[in-house]
């Protein structure tokens, strides 16, 4: 079992093989040697879950002897095992999908190498037994995300989008770095974090703040939301894996993992709930304003992560984690379907130019419908409904005002999900309503091959059935997160939320036909990233002002520095 705690290494052989150009199978597709890695990762998690479920701890003491307590520690327990399964399965689907999606791309090998690196880093994050190891994974996934966003380096804006992600992530890295620094003996175990916070001023509240800021950066919450929509510049499989299902959920994972510490700081919890709820509502509106299919989905991801944040804030980490799991499945499905559409339309991502895909891609249409309904939370038959209900229930119980706000925003969720769905698949494109499909487009559409469709099926299955596993997930996580709330298949709230979601979805249909597919509310929101970038540029320019090339000003500055320091020391001592 100890072996499974090293699961983050499982994708590295694939990385090496792919980097060396080894392929598997008849097609000689670059990257095919990597596919086994994530499957093994998922298997490791599954075997642990099916076994005795005894936490596995690996500790290498004196990993970094310059620190007083410096173990490299890994921890495989229920949380990390479930995460391993989620990460492993979603990435296995994305790998297979990418074999087809990225075919013909000159950088396909590099793409798979980056993916392998990402999965390894993500698993390190998940398996990290102390803050320092978690941070190593945390910063590594940021790097992987940057490399994959900037993957198509010939396209415009990919590098700047990558740098935006890097910048936002830097804030989170700094916060987590400081969290590791403030816990006495920085590499303290994650499980003993709450007791470790007792001994120093600021204590749990400060630590909780740092953790929440870190999580906000990674999960694109609050003011740090801006990088996620830009991150859609990367290839679509990346958007599905990293920027929908796994990496952006790492913030939620961190908060769930440290729920014990957060519970000691009620004020921080309350703020977290507010951040999550406000992000959920605002990003819902923002999604309605998008003209780009993927950006619309990205805002939806922000919103769903907002639900999870709110759940953590409500003191219901299990609900957050459950939603993380179901969301991983249906959002990855939605993104991969979007990829199939974009692939078929030769890379076209604008909603106004997509449309009428219903007949061209019938399978994808049904799969997208499943994903969208799970997103809206159709009761009983979709996974999203179960996990979202838990969150709403916790919200109404803990902070009723926010709870009702979230209930209301379910309508918004339905509305944008419907807008995207009917915008792409509905028969509202102008050409179609005129009764004929344009010849050029009809000919041009790529039929998706089997490799592109097959990986969608397990995800769709997950989007339907995962909700039924809620209570077993709850009992698995019980040692870590306490007794889970009872999961009702049907309650008043379920029907209310379901009705709102579905209502939103259908309203979008009516709205769509009324507006001929071009319906959207005007864009809003501050160009926050631009603001930060120009601020950074201004400071950078100011920093180099002194370096004018004039020797005398250099000497002046140096002498001034010497004088100041001397004066400071001598007066300070006197």
């Amino acid at each position: 079992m100890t072996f499974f705690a090293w699961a983050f290494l499982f994708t590295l052989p694939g990385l090496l093989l792919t980097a060396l150009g080894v392929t598997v199978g008849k097609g000689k597709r670059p990257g095919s040697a990597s596919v086994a890695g994530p499957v093994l990762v998922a298997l490791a998690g599954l075997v642990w879950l099916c076994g005795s479920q005894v936490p596995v701890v690996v500790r290498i003491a004196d990993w970094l002897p310059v620190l007083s307590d410096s173990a490299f520690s890994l921890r495989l327990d229920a949380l990390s095992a479930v995460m391993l399964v989620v990460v492993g399965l979603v990435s296995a689907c994305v790998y297979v999908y990418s074999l087809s999606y990225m075919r013909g791309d000159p950088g396909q090998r590099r793409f798979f190498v980056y993916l392998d690196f990402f999965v390894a880093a993500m698993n390190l994050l998940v398996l990290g037994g102390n803050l320092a190891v978690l941070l190593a994974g945390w910063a590594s996934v940021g790097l992987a995300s940057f490399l994959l966003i900037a993957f198509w380096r010939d396209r415009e804006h990919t590098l700047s989008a990558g740098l935006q992600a890097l910048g936002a992530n830097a804030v989170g890295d700094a916060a987590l770095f400081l969290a590791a620094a403030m816990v006495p003996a920085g590499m303290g175990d994650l499980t003993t974090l709450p007791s470790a916070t007792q001994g120093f001023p600021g204590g749990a509240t400060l630590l909780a703040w740092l953790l929440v800021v870190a999580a906000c950066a990674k999960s694109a919450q609050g003011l740090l939301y801006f990088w996620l929509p830009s991150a859609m510049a990367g290839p679509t499989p990346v958007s599905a894996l990293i920027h929908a299902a796994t990496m952006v959920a790492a913030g939620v994972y961190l908060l769930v993992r440290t729920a014990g510490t957060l519970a000691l700081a009620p004020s921080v919890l309350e703020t977290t709930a507010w951040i999550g709820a406000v992000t959920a509502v605002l990003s819902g509106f923002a999604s309605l304003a998008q003209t780009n299919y993927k950006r619309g989905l990205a805002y939806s991801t922000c919103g769903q992560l907002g639900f999870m944040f709110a759940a953590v804030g409500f003191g219901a980490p299990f609900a957050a984690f459950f939603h993380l799991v179901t969301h991983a499945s249906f959002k990855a499905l939605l993104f991969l379907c979007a990829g199939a559409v974009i692939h078929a339309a030769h890379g076209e991502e604008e909603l106004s130019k997509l449309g009428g895909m219903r007949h061209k891609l019938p399978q994808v249409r049904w799969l997208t419908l499943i994903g969208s309904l799970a997103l809206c939370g159709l009761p009983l038959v979709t996974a999203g409904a179960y996990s979202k209900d838990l969150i709403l229930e916790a919200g109404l119980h803990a902070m009723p005002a926010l709870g009702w706000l979230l209930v209301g925003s379910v309508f918004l969720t339905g509305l944008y999900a419907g807008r995207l769905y009917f915008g792409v698949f509905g028969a509202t494109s102008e050409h179609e309503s005129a009764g004929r499909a344009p010849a050029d487009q009809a000919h041009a559409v790529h039929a998706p091959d089997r490799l592109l469709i097959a990986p969608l099926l397990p995800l769709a299955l997950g989007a339907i059935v995962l909700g039924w596993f809620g209570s077993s997930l709850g009992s698995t996580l019980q040692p870590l997160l306490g007794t889970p709330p009872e999961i009702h298949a049907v309650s008043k709230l379920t029907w209310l939320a379901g009705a709102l979601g579905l209502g939103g979805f259908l309203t979008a249909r009516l709205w769509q036909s009324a507006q001929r597919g071009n319906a959207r509310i005007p864009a809003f929101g501050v160009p926050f990233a631009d603001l930060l970038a120009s601020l950074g540029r201004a400071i950078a320019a100011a920093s180099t002002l002194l370096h004018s090339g004039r020797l005398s000003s250099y000497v002046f500055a140096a002498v001034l520095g010497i004088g100041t320091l001397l004066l400071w020391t001598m007066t300070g001592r006197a």
Partner: protein
Amino acid sequence: MIALGLDIGSALANVDGATFGVVLGTSALMFALGAVGCLLRRNPIALLMSVELMLNAANLVFVLAARVRGYVDAQAAALIVLVLGAAEAVIGLALALALFRHRSRVDADEPREVRG
């Protein structure tokens, strides 16, 4: 001059407090003058001379140390600093010559291509 009234302790028995203060004050003044000279003079040779002034201020303190402590090594240090100053001057003049050979104005602030 600040040091004039201070009790300089038994260790400094070889010299009285007033002399100690005067010498130290002179050296500080020389050092400050050298530093100001480095700031204000644009001519590379004057620049180098200012640096020499700063080094000589240090030498004065070394000699003072040798005197008050009866510590001969400090005198040796002063001699070594003299040699060091000479070595610096050689390299400095060579660099200045190479740099300003093709320039009409000999002004240390003039070349501003490298901003760093």
